[in-house]
């Protein structure tokens, strides 16, 4: 218990660090992932190609290596100083964007072609086909896997600990400097993650039940 309650400031800072990485990285991932996902299903072959290359390259690169590029490589390339938190957020966002893009793409693919064809047959223009027929159906089948992507992102924030961003993953080193029990520290970190992930999983189940595909 002492590890937790003797240093409340460190734990709050660590939790805030993790949450900042999660929300900011998630925001970048959702925006970038939507763009890439749209490119991957677009009628323009070049855009499709660019999307495919992006997804295949980034998805087959370890997140640790992407962090490596951002934390150690990027500062060599620019003249101004960038703090590690910003770099970590971008690394997480760019990595997670590929999973967001793939989730969106497979969500759109679950909508039967007949749905869009029927919509076009009754004379709806492209924007209405998308907003009234395709996207509402795709969104329902996208939400559960998207929550899984976000859960993975939450767990991946710990990787930032290896790259000078203070979060729940790095509190072990701090406690070790203070001579505290590392085992107990890490068990607490584990406990916090289990609670946060269960919370997200619960949210996932609620959304899943509310927006179950009625087909």
């Amino acid at each position, binding site marked *: 218990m002492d590890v937790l309650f003797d240093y409340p400031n460190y734990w709050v800072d660590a939790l805030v660090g993790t949450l900042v990485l999660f929300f900011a990285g998630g925001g970048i991932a959702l925006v970038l992932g939507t763009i890439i996902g749209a490119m991957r299903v*677009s009628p323009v072959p070049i855009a499709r190609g660019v999307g495919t290359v992006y997804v295949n390259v980034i998805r*087959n690169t370890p997140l640790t290596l992407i962090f490596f590029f951002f934390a150690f490589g990027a500062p060599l390339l620019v003249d101004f100083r960038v703090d590690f938190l910003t770099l970590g957020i971008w690394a997480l966002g760019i990595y997670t964007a590929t999973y967001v893009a793939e989730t969106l793409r497979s969500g759109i693919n679950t909508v039967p072609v007949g749905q869009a064809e029927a919509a076009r047959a009754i004379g709806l223009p492209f924007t209405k086909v998308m907003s009234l027929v395709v996207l509402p159906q795709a969104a329902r089948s996208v939400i559960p896997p998207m929550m899984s992507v976000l859960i993975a992102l939450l767990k991946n924030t710990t990787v930032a600990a290896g790259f000078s961003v203070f979060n729940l993953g790095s509190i072990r080193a701090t406690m070790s400097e203070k001579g505290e029990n590392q085992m107990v520290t890490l068990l607490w970190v584990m406990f916090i993650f289990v609670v946060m992930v269960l919370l997200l999983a619960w949210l996932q189940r609620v959304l899943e039940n509310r927006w179950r595909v009625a087909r």
Partner: protein
Amino acid sequence: MTSVLYDVPGPKAIARNRIIGVLTVVVVAALLGLLIWRLAESGQFSAYKWQAFGYSRIWEQFGIATLRTLAAFALSALGALALGFILAIGRMSNHAWVRWPFIAIVEVLRAVPVLIMMMLIYYGLPVVGVKLDSYWAVVIALVAYNGSVLAEVLRAGIESLPRGQAEAGYAVGLRKAGVMRLVLLPQAIRAMLPVIIAQLVVTLKDTALGFIITYPELLYFAKQLGSNAVLGSPLIPSALVAGAIYISMCLLLSLAAVKAEKRLRSSPRVHKAPGAGAPLLEGTETELIVTQKRG
């Protein structure tokens, strides 16, 4: 070609698509150009920065580091598959006192970040007197995490099979173990092979986390080489080389997954993967009769 999103383009759409195509090329070229300009400007392409790669010793060490990555991956993959089977079967047990502990174990292992698990083994266990090598910390953490994920994959595969399969197995006189081993598992593994291989790609990528707990694998060596001042601290060049090695290894495995998926789709022997069209009638005939009798 027609897709859900768009019809076969007419003359207007073809012209518009061309403009979008040109715009894409311009934006991507601008981004890549910016990156390459910054790389060149900061001297990352100079021979001085790449001199390390003229020595065969350096390549030898890259090879050794890659082998260390593969050594961690191979054992983790085998272990994860084995643990996955055990956890999946335990989780589907008919006895609640077996099932619930397994459910708890799988859920906890899935919820904890792999890096935290590695730290727990590498930094945490020495507190209670168990000192393990960083290699074992990497392997055990990867086995625990990926094993629990694979358990869920296998369970989903088995549960996606028509219930008639198991019932037919029992009808011809097989016991629980026989039904599982001879009827359900072979079909589930076949249907889930792409997902299983994709999870192995994740395992391979996650070996790079060993870098953070000082397991001397590929990325660790890239960092070491990158901070070698005698060779001009070629940080970006060595990261690029390490990245190329990682990407080619993972792409090879991913390719296997794509191949497996294609073979699956064309194979008539496989029950269609989950999500490929919901069945019209959920239960089997037997269950229908049972529910009718009850009602």
